[in-house]
Structure formats: structure tokens, C-alpha cells
């Protein structure tokens, strides 16, 4: 075994082998070592059903699947070893309108990617799959290019490719510990010797939590026993010339595909059984678990209803084996915070589907420092410290049976909540809040009147929350409201080098005067959006940085990675020390004045400035700026005094009809103002130049991403962010909607919704610049239907910012 390597991949399943293969193929050649404690595929790859399809709930996830299929089809040519790929096509069915909407979302999103996908009627489905009883179906989607692969063959083929490119494969080698060397490298200690390396990739599947523990991380991945049934030979299938398409009937929580001369039925049963509650033992390898037929009998019966032949066909083999699951069923991929050069590639419950693609993308990510596509949906840093083992155990009991549940954009599932709550949580509950779950934080989405709509119906259309959100928006427009944004990620940057360093981190000029605020995006090396940050200068050597709550781990990891080693800059996470209440609306100043000992008049407290003032008895850091486009103040305060601050404001606002406002209203209002949202508009695919915050880019200084910006300045921007008013009836754009002109796709939405203050359906999206002129007419495809739309001048609400600056 080598003693030195550039990268060590831990785990010889489909994922680990693919990562090693791609790292070697893209140039690291024999500087890549793979370590597997048993044989290739012996963790959970061996028991995978092998379904490979384009369908993924996320736009970028879908692209990973697309890349997989491309790679699987090419593997044999390249390595000489077949991958066992069969193109069979696949059908995803719907038996209710909500599901049809989900298919509509998938259809539209897939069309943004240029995929071959079509709606099929129940009759057409019946023709494609003669064994299927299509009763009760409303329709489905059909992807002709989907198929299946033999999980073992495809892993062996990638392993062969990996070896051909120089990867050293060490089987029967167990990692015992991983240590950081003083020089910042990793020392991977195994029972067969030690390797010093620059990068470690944890693709240890069932044991990924154990490997993570070696470097001090607790990751939300646990094992669940997944079952699929191989039926005995069916003559009609044996005699047929063509293969049956894979069918996913998500409403029955089953999938069915052809295997040789028969069928495999797989399922996500209601009572998923966690396997090995306290961690999978190291000596486990490719062992079948006793299947629990009683536990899956509902799904089997559902399968028989949909495919009556299954009732007359015997079980040839029932396979139950452990597969990893994360709280939302998507994997954990990418840099592991807060470590350097330690990457996760684990938590996969559909590892075969993504093995090819994620190997490609992760290899690129490791080698180039940035992923080729924005992989936030699978980024391991999307889970905060609340997503620990116990949380995961509780959460997955809910997630697993609902893996095939309809995906809704407005759904916040109840399991494993609450976790993080603001001190005023009880007040919010008393005010009848309907909460959402954001990075573990309970945050009110809206406040219906008592006894009304205390549960938001999950829907792709305007939900029962619509009218309550409308009320909140209008209230804020006309009166005053409080939004709880305690969940903001807050970082204190200080030291003699703080200002210079921040100036390197953001394209914006760091404020030169104390108490000044600047919207300061951080960019990646290509000039694309990395993070949405607001910097407040406290003094020459202290800056208060606020970033998106869900991006906390991601953003702080990026800062930490770039922090100078000489001690000139100190970084302190103060997220959990400070709360934030946003006071906004035309009457906000008068309320604040009542509540504060200080002078908060327009002259004394100007727009886009920050002051330390008293709110009630509490000294707060107050920024005169907000995300809703009204006169308003972001009031940061010591978290233990939140109730006092809240009560001071509510008392002061009693005469002004003050009320609490939720997240849905905030999101509606930010759309009207054209304010960007992180990972909607601000993704790794866009630079600020393409947006309405191009003014934040200051070319008279050096910053990360400048060369990318310069390049784009030369070549011209490929896309331009616009605001569209859409002629939508009961369903608004959500993002990833194709924007069409004369049947040609000219762009895609990044987000959308209803603007209650302007009473219009709004979408933000990126268009080719030639179409970006206000007044240009086009169509936006929503849930598979074209809606006419028009580009309007951004922002559509209070274009001159008079309200905010008043």
C-alpha cells in the first residue's frame, strides 16, 4: 500500500469507486487510493435494485442523474467492462391532482434541462405496461431514456476504469483513525499501514457516520432495512422481445421493474425499520436481513392492485438489506465543515442512480475547488448541529415511508420538531403562528386568526394560507409589523486585518465609516455568488456580518477556509448569542421611538446605517434596513433579552396596531422588491453582473472572483435577471419554470410567488439579455401549462425606494 497520495477515498461501493475513478481520470491518476474494508459493493451497493432514472425533485439533482446515465452508457466502451445498463424507459404515475401537479413541476423542470419527457394518459400507460391495472390513475410522466443497471457490474466497470487510470485499490483494509498532521494534511491509519494525503473522501456508506466520528463530526445518516421482492419467472415476460419500463407508483409507495424473466417490486413501507440503532458494526458485509413480510404487506397488496399478475406469481427471493438515509432522503456530499479538504460522499439511498454523476461532479469539485453545478441540494452542510443522531432517528421514521410522498414546495413536515426556537416562541404560538422549519429553527410562516387554517395544506397552487399572507403584507404596507429573524447566521469579524480580509472576501467595498452597512456578496473563484452577506461596520477593527440562516455552516466554512493563519483576523460565530426582530412598516419609526430612549428620527438615524441604541431596557444593534421594502429596522439583541425587547415593541406599538408577520409574507414582499434570495437567484451559476446588485461589484480593488467578473465584463453577460408579471390563475411560479418565447426556451425562473402589495403574480428569472427589456412578452410554464408573462421594471413595488428611505 502506498504511504502517500493526493486523495484517499474511503469506501468501495458504487459511490466511492466512482469518485476514485473520476479523480484519476481527470488527472490525479495514480495519486488516488481507495480503501475498502471488505469487497467492493459489500456495504449496500450489493442490494440496490439498480433503478436509474432522471427523476429527482431538484433541478441540480436531476442533472446528477443525467450525468450518471451518460457515464453508465459509455463505461463499457471506455473500460471494456459492461455496466449491465438496459434502457427500458420509466413511468411515474399519479392518482390524485396533487400528484399531477408534482408531475407538472417535474415536467416543466425537466424541460428546462432539455430532457425527453412526456405526459402519458392511463390508456397509454396500459399499452406500455400490459401487466398494469391503470384504474384510478389520472396520468403519468414517461421518460424513454431511463433504465436500470446491474449495481455490481457498474461498480466493477468503474473499478476497472479506476485501475486503468492508476487508482490503487486496497480491499480488506480497515481505516482505524484519521488524524490531521501539523502540516495540514491527513494521516489515514489503516490495519495495513498508514497513508498521508491531501484529501480524504468519506464514501463509507453505512459506516460514513463512524468515519465522520474519526474527524469529530456527527452526520445525519442512518441505516434502514429496505426490501424488494424478486418474483418467479413469468412466461409472458420471458417470451417478450422488449423490456418493460420501470414503473414508479408513488401514491402506492412502490416501484416495479423487469429483472431478467420476471419482476422486482420495491417499496417504502409505512413503518420503515431502522437497522442497528447505534451504528453499523464494522464486520457487517453483504448480509441479508430477515425480511419482515408483515411490515411490508400493505405495499405488496398495493403492488398486486396495480399489477394483478403479482398475486399469481410466487416470491422467488425477498431481499432485505440496509441502505443509508438522511433526514430528507437526499445524500450528504461535498466539503465537510469545518474541516479542510475532507469531503463527504455518503448518505445515499439512491446511490446507483447518482453514482456516475456524483463521482464526476465531486471529483471536479475537489480538483477545481468549486462544483460544476450548484449542488446545495445535496451539500452536507445543509444540516446544522441540530441534525444529530437522535434527531435523524426520529426524522427518518417519518421520511422513509414518505419518500414517495408528493413533493410540495410549501410543506414543512412535523417530525422531529421543534429544535431551535426563539425565546418568543411561546408568544408566537399564542398568536396562532403556523411554523416552518428552517435549519432547525421554528419560524412562523403566517399567523391566521384563531381557529382558522392552522395547518397549511401542502400544494403547488395557492394554499389556504394565501389570504392570511395577503393580510399580513397589507398590514405591513399600511401599519407596522414584527418579523422574527433570530435564525440569521451572525458572524463577528475582528482584528487588525479584518477590514482588508473582508475586502478580499466580498466584491463590495467594506464600509469606511463606523455604523455603515453594505450589502456584500461573497463570490466564488469564478465570480459567481457564493454567499449573501450584509456587513455592518462597528469600528475600524470590528465588523458584524449577517448571512442567510440556512447557509450558516456553508458560509462560515468558506470564511474559515480563507481565514489568514497569522491571527490578524478573528472570526466568532455569534448566531446563538443574538436574536433579531425586524420592525417594519410606515409606523415602525414611531413605534421604535416610543420604545427607545434614543433619538431614532429620520435625521438622527439614516437609511442604511447602524446604531447601538436602547429598545426598552435592552441595548441593541439596530440596522436601518430590511428585506421587505418598507421603512424598517433590524433589531439585533442579546438573545436572553428577546422577550423584553419584544414586549417593549408590542407595548409601544399597541396603538399602531402592531402585529407579527410571517415568512410567507416576507418572501412575497422581497419578490416585489426584487431582492435576491440565496440559492434561488444567488447560485453558483450567476454573477452579480447579471442581477440588480451589479452595483455591489467594485472593480477598483482585489477580491475573490474578480478575474471571473473581469472575464464576464469582457464577454458580456449571458443572462440577465428580470422580474416578470405572470398571468397566473391559481398557481404561481416556484422556480425552475421554463420561460418560453414562440416555443423556444429563452430562460428559467429562479423563484416566484404572488405579490400581495401589488396584487400580481410575480416571477424572478434569468433571460438571455435580448429578451430582458421591460414590456417584452413571453410565456412562463407553470405545472406543465404556459402562462403569458411580461417583463416589468424591477422593482415593481416602490421603484424609487421612497418608503424605505422615508
Amino acid at each position, binding site marked *: 500500500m502506498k504511504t502517500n497520495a493526493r486523495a484517499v477515498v474511503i469506501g468501495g461501493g458504487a459511490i466511492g469507486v466512482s469518485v476514485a475513478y473520476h479523480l484519476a481520470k481527470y488527472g490525479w491518476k495514480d495519486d488516488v487510493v481507495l480503501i475498502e474494508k471488505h469487497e467492493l459493493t459489500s456495504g449496500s451497493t450489493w442490494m440496490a435494485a439498480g433503478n436509474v432514472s432522471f427523476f429527482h425533485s431538484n433541478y441540480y439533482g436531476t442533472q446528477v442523474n443525467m450525468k450518471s446515465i451518460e457515464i453508465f452508457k459509455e463505461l463499457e466502451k471506455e473500460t471494456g467492462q459492461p455496466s449491465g445498463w438496459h434502457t427500458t424507459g420509466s413511468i411515474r404515475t399519479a392518482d390524485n391532482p396533487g400528484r399531477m401537479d408534482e408531475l407538472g413541476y417535474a415536467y416543466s423542470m425537466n424541460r428546462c434541462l432539455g430532457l425527453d419527457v412526456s405526459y402519458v394518459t392511463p390508456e397509454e400507460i396500459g399499452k406500455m405496461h400490459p401487466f398494469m391495472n391503470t384504474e384510478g390513475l389520472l396520468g403519468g410522466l414517461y421518460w424513454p431514456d431511463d433504465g436500470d443497471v446491474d449495481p455490481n457490474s457498474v461498480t466493477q466497470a468503474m473499478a476497472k476504469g479506476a485501475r486503468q487510470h492508476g487508482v490503487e485499490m486496497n480491499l*480488506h483494509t480497515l481505516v482505524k483513525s484519521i488524524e490531521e498532521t501539523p502540516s495540514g494534511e491527513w494521516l489515514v491509519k489503516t490495519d495495513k499501514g498508514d497513508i498521508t494525503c491531501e484529501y480524504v473522501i468519506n464514501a463509507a456508506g453505512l459506516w460514513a457516520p463512524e468515519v465522520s466520528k474519526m474527524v469529530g463530526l456527527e452526520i445525519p445518516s442512518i441505516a434502514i432495512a429496505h426490501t424488494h421482492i424478486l*418474483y*418467479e419467472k413469468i412466461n409472458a415476460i420471458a417470451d417478450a422481445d422488449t423490456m418493460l419500463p420501470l414503473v414508479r407508483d408513488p401514491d402506492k409507495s412502490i416501484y416495479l421493474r423487469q429483472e431478467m424473466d420476471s419482476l422486482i417490486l420495491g417499496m417504502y413501507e409505512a413503518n420503515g425499520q431502522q437497522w442497528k440503532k447505534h451504528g453499523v458494526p464494522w*464486520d457487517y*458485509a453483504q*448480509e*441479508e*436481513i*430477515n*425480511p419482515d*413480510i*408483515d411490515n411490508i*404487506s400493505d405495499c*405488496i*397488496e398495493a403492488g*398486486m392492485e396495480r399489477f394483478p399478475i*403479482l*398475486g*399469481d*406469481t*410466487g*416470491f*422467488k427471493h425477498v431481499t432485505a438489506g440496509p441502505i443509508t438515509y438522511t433526514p430528507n432522503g437526499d445524500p450528504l456530499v461535498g466539503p465537510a465543515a469545518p474541516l479542510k479538504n475532507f469531503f463527504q460522499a455518503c448518505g445515499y439511498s439512491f446511490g446507483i442512480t447518482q453514482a456516475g454523476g456524483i463521482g464526476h461532479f465531486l471529483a471536479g469539485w475537489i480538483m477545481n475547488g468549486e462544483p460544476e453545478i450548484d449542488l446545495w441540494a445535496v451539500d452536507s452542510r445543509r444540516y446544522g448541529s441540530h441534525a444529530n443522531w437522535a434527531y435523524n432517528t426520529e426524522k427518518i421514521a417519518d421520511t422513509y415511508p414518505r419518500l414517495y410522498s408528493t413533493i410540495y414546495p410549501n410543506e414543512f413536515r412535523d417530525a422531529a420538531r421543534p429544535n431551535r426556537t426563539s425565546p418568543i416562541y411561546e408568544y408566537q404560538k399564542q398568536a396562532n403562528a403556523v411554523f416552518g422549519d428552517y435549519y432547525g429553527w421554528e419560524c412562523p410562516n403566517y399567523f391566521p386568526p384563531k381557529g382558522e387554517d392552522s395547518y397549511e395544506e401542502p400544494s403547488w397552487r395557492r394554499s389556504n394560507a394565501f389570504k392570511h399572507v395577503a393580510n399580513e403584507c397589507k398590514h405591513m404596507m399600511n401599519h407596522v409589523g414584527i418579523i422574527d429573524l433570530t435564525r440569521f447566521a451572525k458572524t463577528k469579524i475582528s482584528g487588525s486585518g479584518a477590514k482588508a480580509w473582508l475586502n478580499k472576501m466580498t466584491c463590495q467595498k467594506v464600509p469606511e465609516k463606523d455604523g455603515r452597512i453594505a450589502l456584500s456578496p461573497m463570490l466564488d473563484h469564478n465570480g459567481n455568488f457564493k454567499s449573501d452577506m450584509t456587513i455592518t461596520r462597528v469600528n475600524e477593527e470590528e465588523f458584524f456580518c449577517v448571512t442567510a440562516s440556512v447557509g450558516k455552516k456553508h458560509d462560515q466554512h468558506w470564511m474559515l477556509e480563507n481565514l489568514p493563519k497569522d491571527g490578524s483576523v478573528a472570526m466568532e460565530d455569534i448566531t446563538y448569542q443574538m436574536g433579531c426582530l425586524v420592525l417594519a412598516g410606515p409606523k415602525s419609526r414611531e413605534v421604535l421611538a416610543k420604545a427607545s430612549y434614543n433619538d431614532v428620527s429620520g435625521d438622527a438615524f439614516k437609511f442604511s446605517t447602524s446604531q447601538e441604541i436602547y429598545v426598552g431596557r435592552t441595548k441593541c444593534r439596530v440596522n436601518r434596513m430590511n428585506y421587505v421594502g418598507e421603512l424598517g429596522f433590524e433589531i439585533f439583541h442579546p438573545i436572553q433579552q428577546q422577550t423584553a425587547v419584544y414586549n417593549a415593541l408590542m407595548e409601544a406599538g399597541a396603538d399602531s396596531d402592531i402585529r407579527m408577520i410571517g415568512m410567507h409574507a416576507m418572501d412575497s414582499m422581497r419578490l416585489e422588491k426584487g431582492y435576491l434570495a440565496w440559492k434561488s437567484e444567488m447560485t453558483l451559476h450567476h454573477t452579480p453582473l447579471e442581477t440588480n446588485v451589479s452595483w455591489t461589484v467594485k472593480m477598483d480593488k482585489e477580491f475573490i472572483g474578480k478575474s471571473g467578473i473581469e472575464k464576464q465584463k469582457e464577454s458580456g453577460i449571458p443572462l440577465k435577471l428580470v422580474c416578470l408579471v405572470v398571468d397566473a390563475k391559481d398557481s404561481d411560479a416556484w422556480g425552475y419554470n421554463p420561460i418560453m418565447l414562440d416555443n423556444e426556451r429563452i430562460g428559467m425562473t429562479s423563484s416566484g410567488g404572488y405579490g400581495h402589495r401589488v396584487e400580481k403574480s410575480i416571477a424572478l428569472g434569468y433571460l438571455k439579455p435580448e429578451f430582458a427589456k421591460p414590456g417584452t412578452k413571453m410565456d412562463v410554464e407553470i405545472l406543465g401549462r404556459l402562462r403569458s408573462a411580461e417583463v416589468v421594471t424591477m422593482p415593481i413595488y416602490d421603484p424609487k425606494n421612497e418608503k424605505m428611505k422615508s
Partner: protein
Amino acid sequence: MKICVCLKHVPDTAASIKLAGDAGFEDSEIKFVSNPYDEYGVEEAVSLVEKEGGEVVIVTVGKAAAVTTIRGAMAMGAHRAILVKIDDQFLDSSLTAQALKAAMEQDGLPDMIFTGKGSVDTESFQTQYRLAQSLGMPVVNEVNALSLDNGKVVVEKEAGGGDKQVMEMSLPCVVGATKGLNEPRYPKFPDIMKAKKKKIQEIDLADLGVDGAAGSVVIEKLETVPERSGAKMLQGSVDDQVTELVKILKEDEKVL
């Protein structure tokens, strides 16, 4: 006619066996199945009863968990079952035979008894003989073809050198089934559901008057056979390699 099928609940042959203590193994996690040879017996019994009428009774000596395996046989068509409960996977063959005999006597002796040719866990290959002896019945093991005519059972079994012996017995008799006798049916889900309602009578071994500790073959110690860790790679020209291989297989390994 009444047919008893002796069915053993054994670890799947693909399961990796982890030893626990000197003479035991960890059985809580691994997959258990019905002894594969016994399934030929179940199939034969069920098809005979489908033709001739009567009932198929599964008789199992095993741990309480054997119920899952019994249900599998019931899904294939067995009517009811008797489970003689023991605490350990391993029970001396003589005692197993005694337990089977006692259970069958209590239930009413059958016209025919099927077993597998042997079990894949202890590989003892003798319980069926002891059972037959104690009941005064004829026994033929490793039966791969069977016909029943007028109380006479004609069976066929492999003899050495690819020959086949055809033998005849009168009912009642014991037949040790093996591959070739039939293709055991795969249980269908509706049958699995029906099987859940069928009756399993549970009896403790001691209640049959059998002392589980009285066995004369005692396991002193179990040892794991190490897995292969790498091949001896032959070298030289194709001819050299092949010549060496044949020599090794004949002289060292003696497998040719």
C-alpha cells in the same frame, strides 16, 4: 392421507456465521430460512395431498423463531404445524428424532414422513434414519423421484457413478428428499397471508419427555474457517501454467 414433513429452521447458506462463546453463534441478526432440502419434501407432500386428499403437517424442532420458516411452508400449502421448542439451534440427532417421533405420536402417526436429505447447518445426515427406525418404518434418503401407487412408494435415488437405484417401500415410510424430486413452488402473497391464519401447535421439548441435555455428541468448540486471502498466481507460458495447475489439482489438492 396424512403426511408429516420435518422442517428445520436454519441460517441462510449465504449468511456469515459469527461465533459466540465456544459452541454457539449469534443468531439474532442473520437471515434464517427453511432448510433447502426440506422444501422438496414440503412440495412433494403438498402435491401428493393435492392429488390424494388429506393433510400436510409440518413438524419442526427448533427455536421459537422457527415460526417464520413454518409459515413459509404453510404458504406453500401445508395445513398445520407442530413446533417442538428448544432453546438452542443445535440438538443431538437422536434427541431430534425422539422429539419428532413423540410429537407425531401425540398428533397421530402419519402415512408418510418427508425430511430433507440433510440439514445445511449441522450436516448430520441421520435424523430421518433414526426417526424411521424408532417408528419401525422403512426409509430411503436422497430421493429425487417418487411415485405412489396402492400404498406402495417407489422412489429413485442416485447411486454412485451416475447410476440410479429404484426402490420400493410400503406406507407408512420416511422419505429424505433432495433436489430433482420436484421444483418447490414459490409462495404467492395471498398464500402467505392465508398461512398466517393456520394453526401452529407449540410444545416444549421437555413436555415430550425428551431431555435436551442428554445428547451423546457434544459440541466442544466451533471454529471459523478463514476466508481465502489471495491466490497463488501461476507463472510462465500458458502451457507451463496449465501443466502446473493440473499437477497441483491432482497431486496437492487431490480434487481431480
